[in-house]
């Protein structure tokens, strides 16, 4: 039964997507990666929705040390740059309710140094009780050097934060946004935030010089156990990931196969995932093709909300349904 994943199989599915481990280019029948698309709002039902999603994917949480990795970039109240604190709160409470041994919230913003102040301005302190004791600034965390399972040109190892290296599971909580260099930024690109600024700077420019697409794969290869929960309730269109406009899509997109989740989120945004280079490079089981992903909940085409694309990326537009 594909729904009856064991913990071992769950970890394998997540790790294969992380490392590009040479799996077949098509999933075996009944073994398609599963991605949930659920209609959602930042209202009171969000906790229940997140909890249901975690349960339907049998995310191994009991007695596990979990890190929630939102996307905190800058603060601009006129748009939707950062992962909503309401979604982070829902994930926190859901993980606790499902028996996690500990849950931390951790991020290393790429442009602005004062991460705590950024979190405060973005409403995290107000929304999440005890936030100060839960938050880790990954830019300033204790670090160790890690040889990457998948290297990028000139980058075969990275210093990475202990908070990430020593946890059992990372839950990537990206904002659904367009991105002016790679087309779309979702769960995989969100992991740029684990690379410590204290070594590489603000921005973590070594990743750009190594090639952004290649670096996305390299950083992901250092995080084998990851679940992705995309904040697509309100995203950003146009000149993302910072200067775009708020875009309501009204969904969360989630799953253990990070490539399949990002590909599905692209379809919701009206972006062809097969034209996003890092997704094509990362796919291990044809996840950029819709037929190779088993959708749970809403069909992506039913909730598709085309995000405006800057002229340089209009070629990424998904064909009309």
């Amino acid at each position, binding site marked *: 039964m594909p729904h009856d994943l064991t913990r071992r199989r769950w970890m394998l599915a997540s790790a294969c997507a992380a490392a590009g481990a040479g799996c077949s280019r098509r999933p075996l029948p009944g073994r398609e990666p599963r991605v949930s698309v659920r209609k959602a709002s930042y209202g009171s039902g969000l906790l229940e929705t997140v909890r249901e999603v975690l349960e339907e994917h049998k995310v191994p949480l009991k007695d596990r040390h979990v890190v929630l990795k939102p996307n905190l970039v800058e603060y601009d109240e006129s748009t939707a740059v950062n992962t909503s604190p309401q979604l982070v709160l829902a994930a926190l409470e859901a993980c606790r309710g499902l028996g996690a041994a500990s849950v931390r919230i951790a991020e290393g913003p790429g442009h602005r140094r004062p991460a705590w102040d950024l979190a405060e301005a973005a409403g995290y302190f107000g929304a999440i009780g005890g936030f100060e004791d839960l938050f880790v600034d990954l830019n*300033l965390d204790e670090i160790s050097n890690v040889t990457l399972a998948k290297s990028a040109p000139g980058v075969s190892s990275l210093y990475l934060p202990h908070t990430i290296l020593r946890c059992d599971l990372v839950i990537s909580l990206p904002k659904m946004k367009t991105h002016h260099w790679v087309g779309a930024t979702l769960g995989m690109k969100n992991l740029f935030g684990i690379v410590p600024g204290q070594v*590489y700077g603000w921005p973590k*420019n070594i990743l750009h010089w190594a090639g952004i697409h290649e670096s996305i794969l390299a950083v992901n290869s250092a995080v084998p156990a990851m679940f992705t929960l995309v904040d697509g309730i309100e995203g950003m269109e146009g000149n993302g990931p910072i200067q775009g406009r708020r875009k309501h899509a009204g969904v969360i997109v989630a799953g253990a196969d990070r490539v399949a989740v990002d590909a599905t989120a692209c379809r919701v945004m009206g972006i062809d995932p097969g034209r996003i280079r890092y997704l094509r490079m990362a796919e291990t089981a044809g996840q950029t093709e819709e037929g190779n992903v088993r959708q749970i909940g809403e069909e992506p085409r039913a909730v598709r909300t085309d995000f405006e694309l800057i002229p340089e990326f209009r070629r990424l537009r998904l064909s009309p349904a």
Partner: protein
Amino acid sequence: MTYAGPVTAETLLAAQNPDGGWSFARGTSATEPTACAVLALAAAGASGEPVQRGRGWLLRIQRPDGGWPPRPSIAQSNYVTSLALLALQGNAASDVLRRGAEWLLNQSNRDASTIYRIRMMLLGTRRDLPSEEAWSWFPSTAAWVTPTALAMLALRPWRDSPLREPVRKRLASGEAYLWSRLCRDGGWNHGSSKALGYEADSYPETTGQALLALSGTRDERLPRALAAAERHLRACRSAEAASWLQLGLLAHRQPLPSVPVHLSRPRTVLDQALSLIAARAAAGQNPLLEAAHAA
């Protein structure tokens, strides 16, 4: 008025690790908070044994290439070299300081290289490339505002040294780089005032840093930059950013706006040290500029 929070020298002294260094918040010692704590404590008059142990920690971790790593366990010098030099100016052997200064002089931003610029032109890439030599966070990457501002502060004492020729050239180039990165609102962000042709706005902390590094310079754009800094400070909620803005404005002898602000609590050693440094600057002694003139 001063915007410094309730931070005192004792706050920093209590946070010193047994090895003489400081961590960012808790844990092992790191170069950046140690250098800033030493600068802050020395400026506050606490020049005794804790400051000496802090300097000793910095001296022990200088790398053979002359630069400083962000932590002792990291086999790579980076931007923190500028802060270590500032903290040690006038209080370390001349050879130690000279090797550090030479490391900074040997660092150049990859995006200003002729080969790279030709390559980007041939590829038709629309990038806002600098032509000026400046400084990167990490070797062999692009130039950015913060590491450039810090390197300029660290190299200023060397303007009249045997290294004066390359130092003066790099300071002039750094200054030109900073002005080339000015945002449409008159301030500075991390160093990308345009991305794919889209104009970007400035950040408070980098605006303060750039103004501090441009202390003593003249430019027709300066009044607009000072106005941007003042605007940022009036709206600022970040203790770290407010400290840099104060330092930048005071470096140009500007009065600080006397508006009530609701600043965040200085949470890290870095925030606390910067608050103390800014408080000293408001009292008439800017430790970052005076450290820069001490050699």
